[in-house]
């Protein structure tokens, strides 16, 4: 058991239940809320914020940010994790993990605000970088755990039949670590969607804008639509992550 954030339920049955029920519940609730909101008499402010083009725009900003963060996280954390499990780098591993763990304890909103204040800029990349930093740890840790849990006898056997160290890594260690990496990626996605909700604070856009507008202008309809859209998006992305976990692992381990 690790003492860190993971949205994984840790139970196979629960996972199967979520894979099945989650998208259905989400789509039904989302459709219900949208129908409720658009069948009401909307005033000017509500009409300006609740229309198809605004909603699609903000959703796309949110998705784009999440995908960019996920790509950066995979490109940085997986190679770094693999590197840190090589024999010559092993002494550095606990130090990197400790630093990453402390970083994870920092509140995401604090990281965003600090990054914005330090750089003095706003925009897409100012929002992406702290979010990626924040979502890095689960993938990094799981890559390291995944590779170090591979049985030494398997590596030995690989070397015994004449495979090079690189071939052992590529054909034995890495494939066996893939389920762990995917689980880490799913957690990273959940963290990224959540943090992307806050980037409106530094003018980064995303669905948080709707929640903020509804709150500041005292329009509960906008607030609720924004919150439900955000929650639905997060649950759907998490569902895709779960699907990837179920389908992309090596066939022998499924």
């Amino acid at each position, binding site marked *: *058991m690790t*003492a*860190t*954030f993971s*949205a*994984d*339920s*840790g*139970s196979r*049955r*629960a*996972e*199967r*239940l*979520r894979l099945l*029920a*989650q998208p259905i519940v989400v789509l039904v609730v989302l459709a219900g809320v949208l129908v409720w909101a658009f069948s009401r008499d909307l005033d000017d402010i509500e009409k300006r914020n609740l229309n198809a083009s605004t909603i699609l725009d903000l959703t796309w900003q949110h998705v784009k940010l999440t995908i960019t963060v996920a790509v950066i996280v995979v490109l940085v954390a997986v190679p770094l994790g693999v590197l840190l499990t090589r024999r010559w780098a092993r002494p550095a591993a606990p130090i990197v993990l400790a630093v990453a763990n*402390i970083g*994870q*304890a*920092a*509140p*995401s*909103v*604090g*990281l965003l*605000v*600090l990054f*914005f*204040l*330090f750089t003095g800029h706003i925009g897409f990349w100012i929002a992406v970088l702290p979010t990626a930093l924040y979502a890095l740890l689960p993938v990094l840790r799981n890559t390291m755990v995944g590779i170090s849990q591979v049985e030494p006898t398997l590596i030995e056997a690989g070397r015994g039949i004449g495979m090079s160290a690189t071939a052992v890594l590529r054909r034995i260690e890495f494939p066996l670590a893939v389920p762990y990496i995917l689980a880490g990626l799913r957690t990273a996605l*959940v963290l990224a*969607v*959540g943090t*992307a*909700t*806050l980037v409106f*604070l*530094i003018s980064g856009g995303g*669905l*948080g804008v709707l*929640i903020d507008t*509804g*709150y500041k202008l005292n329009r*509960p309809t906008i*607030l*609720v639509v*924004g*919150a*439900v859209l*955000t*929650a639905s998006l*997060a*649950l759907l992305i*998490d569902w895709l992550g779960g699907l990837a976990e179920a389908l992309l692992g090596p066939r022998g381990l499924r």
Partner: protein
Amino acid sequence: MSLWDYVGSRWQQLLLDSWMHVSAVVQCTIVATALGVLLGVAVYRSPLGSALATALTSAILTIPSFALLGLLIPVLGLGVRPTVTALVLYALLPIVRNTIVGLSGVSPSVVDAARGIGMSRFGVLSRVELRLAWPAILVGMRVSTQMLMGIAAIAAYAKGPGLGNVIFSGLSRVGSANAVNMALAGTVGVVVLALVLDGCYVLLGRLTTSRGIRG
């Protein structure tokens, strides 16, 4: 003004915010533990019940905290009520999951032996099973506390208590001399307090684990 000057001149306010932050997180963890253990005890014998409970609580954890606050504000207003509700809901998954894992990890022969010497069903649960599951439950509480420390900072948006207020104040004073100091003090404060609480859990684990299973 340097960070040290800022902290030196505002330490009373910072101390108060820190105290409110920790106090809210600890109280919510305790409430969530009571609810989570009850829920875990209720479902751990049924595979379907366990799956439902963990699936539901893990779906809750997936919802961004800012969206959950947004949903709670129209219903519960601002301040303590949405903050506590959101924090308790987020703390549930690790505790429920670990309660179920801990309870179902108790060996059936131990339970049989306890029944055999004449203990009631409740006696077995409270004096054997829950005590053996306690280390796992404690790990769940520890994870929840770490998570809540960060989420509580966001609750300041809904006028919740704690160090999040310092961060948001820093944001609203962009360009002024103290903006960075405030955001830095709030963020570092949360990290330091989280580490302190983590240490407390290690101590608590030593003190409250039954002697027989202490490592």
